[in-house]
């Protein structure tokens, strides 16, 4: 806190959500609780503790069984359960209706409302935020609670010192910067967090909590979209998030064909997968499912080989926790060399074939010898 802030007269903003709790919207697909929910509860618990508020969680679905109990074990104090055949599969409008009704039933809106930056969370959160005319920050990588003093005179009604403000922190575009986004003027202050980033609590089977059933009152308009089929894809090849080794390609590959080389290199490793930077996904060189980074997947393989990837912040947030990062890039000043463990300055089309050649030699040398494979 700076001196200036202490000396300034503090306008009364105590009317801003003095008791509102932290609410996490759980996510389940066909009865399977999604990991991001536990992560949200972990993050939400910290925020709630900091403000001495309760952590609430809402879960919607059908035949949810012991899921509400599980949510308590992972940190929730109160769980709201909407269990109804109409909620069996996620649909925007029915889920939106139940949650909007729930939030409107509170005497005071939640202080903070969190969802996952999944296809579901990103579909649902903006609807709720727009309904309540409240702020929503997408794809956060850090959350915190802290004070904020607003001094800008553009809108005098906003001036004041807000003691408990949600800090929604996310990488800012095209920059090696993180932006802290906040909006204490309206509650709930909403954010989505990217899967794989927040740390879940250890399940505590002795934790006590309250489970409350909430009504499901859909309106005719809510039935406008019908889900005909939900297909969980049996993993085609190895999932990015589960691979031990990921070989990723970027714009430096020059064209779609460059990925043939990436696939060939990936095939040299056990339990490997092919990743990509967003730019090449945008260009249609490789499907979205391969994208690593801010708007793609967060991965933590044992080995990450980045080929022709400059290392923009969006990519970096998705892979920087890999055990070993090897970067290949023509440009010695590429940002990726700032956080890779090993950097090779050179043309991918010279380096990768050479790598493949040397790997093949190594393999030949190992033939008949007990393999030194450490995949776990």
């Amino acid at each position: 806190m700076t001196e200036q802030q202490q000396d300034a007269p503090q306008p009364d903003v105590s009317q801003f959500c003095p008791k509102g709790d932290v609410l996490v919207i759980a996510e389940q697909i066909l009865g399977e609780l999604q990991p991001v929910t536990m992560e949200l509860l972990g993050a939400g618990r910290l925020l709630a503790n900091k403000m001495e508020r309760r952590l609430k969680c809402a879960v919607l679905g059908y035949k949810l069984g012991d899921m509400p109990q599980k949510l308590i074990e992972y940190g929730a104090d109160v769980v709201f359960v909407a269990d109804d055949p109409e909620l069996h599969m996620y649909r925007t409008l029915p889920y939106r209706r139940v949650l909007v009704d729930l939030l409107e039933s509170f005497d005071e809106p939640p202080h903070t409302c969190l969802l996952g930056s999944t296809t579901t969370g990103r579909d649902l959160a903006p609807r709720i935020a727009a309904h309540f005319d409240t702020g929503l920050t997408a794809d956060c990588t850090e959350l915190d609670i802290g004070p904020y003093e607003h001094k800008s005179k553009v809108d005098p009604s906003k001036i004041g010192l807000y003691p408990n403000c949600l800090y929604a922190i996310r990488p800012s575009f095209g920059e090696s910067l993180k932006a802290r986004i906040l909006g204490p003027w309206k509650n709930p202050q909403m954010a989505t967090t990217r899967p794989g980033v927040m740390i879940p609590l250890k399940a505590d089977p002795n934790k006590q909590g309250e489970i409350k059933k909430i009504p499901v009152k859909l309106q005719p308009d809510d039935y406008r979209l019908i889900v005909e089929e939900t297909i969980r894809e049996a993993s085609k090849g190895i999932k990015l998030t589960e691979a031990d080794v990921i070989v990723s390609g970027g714009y430096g590959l020059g064209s779609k064909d460059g990925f043939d080389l990436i696939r060939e290199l990936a095939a040299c490793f056990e339990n490997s997968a092919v990743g990509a930077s967003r730019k090449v996904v945008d260009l249609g060189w490789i499907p979205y499912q391969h994208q690593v980074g801010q708007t793609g997947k967060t991965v933590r393989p044992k080995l990450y080989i980045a080929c022709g990837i400059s290392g923009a912040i969006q990519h970096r947030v998705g892979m920087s926790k890999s055990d070993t990062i090897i970067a290949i890039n023509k440009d010695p000043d590429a940002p990726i060399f700032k956080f890779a463990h090993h950097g090779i300055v050179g043309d991918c089309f010279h380096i990768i074939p050479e790598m493949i050649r040397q790997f093949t030699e190594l393999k030949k040398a190992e033939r008949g010898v007990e393999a030194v494979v450490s995949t776990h």
Partner: protein
Amino acid sequence: MAYNIFVLVKQVPDQGSKAGLNPDGTIDRARAKRMLNPFDRYALQAALHMKKAYGGSVTAISMGPPPAVEILLEALEHGVDRGFLLSDRRLAASDTLATAYALYKTVTYVGKFDIIFCGLQTTDGDTAQVGPQLAERLGLPQISYCEDFSIQNGKVHARRIIEGGVQKVLTEMPVLVTVANSYHPLEYKSFRGAWRVQQLQRKQDELKQYIQTVDLDIVGADPERCGLKGSPTIVAATEKVGDIGGNCTMHEGSAPETLVRECLTSTKIDGFLVTAKS
């Protein structure tokens, strides 16, 4: 059936180009090269596909400073029938909620529609929020992460991505669709389209029949709900991301063979290799 097809497009700074990059890595929007938001190319393709397959006309709608008219011209070259640009200084610093409100007013001003296509997200905001927020304002059902669709008996059948799978959905129109980047990439513009736009640009009066620039007053938007004032969120602070590793062992200046050998000897990479027996 002639469908009224709307597509929302945005002009964004080209992050791939070094022009307009400040020394500290931030983007100087005034100097940066501008481009059509890459995600919107899929939305544009979806709109044009719908027109071609089922009939109707395509209206492209954008919000941004005056140069954004460039992407509407580009859309026209691809076969879009007309464009609207909402441009107003009072829109500066709009967050997603304020943007969705301004677009809602613009869409309502432009007229009746059966379907609105949006890109999944923009490359300068990365929020994926404006589409669903606009759908909420318009009270529409939405199909987000759509990667394929068809129209049968006046209903939209679509396949959308969900976590670890896909979902097949069916809905009536009007509907808002955000198009995933696994949809078909935008086809090249035709020579005829490009030529037509070139001709139009010579006759500004005629061009105005195809591309209209409107402001908040024209579309009837409340300026209090736009720009900084209408935005519930602000960027309060930015901080540099500290370097994580900072201990990169560099291999450079030699022949590929040496570089790779150096790197491999120091990383024990061979532990992960497919073994000879497999």
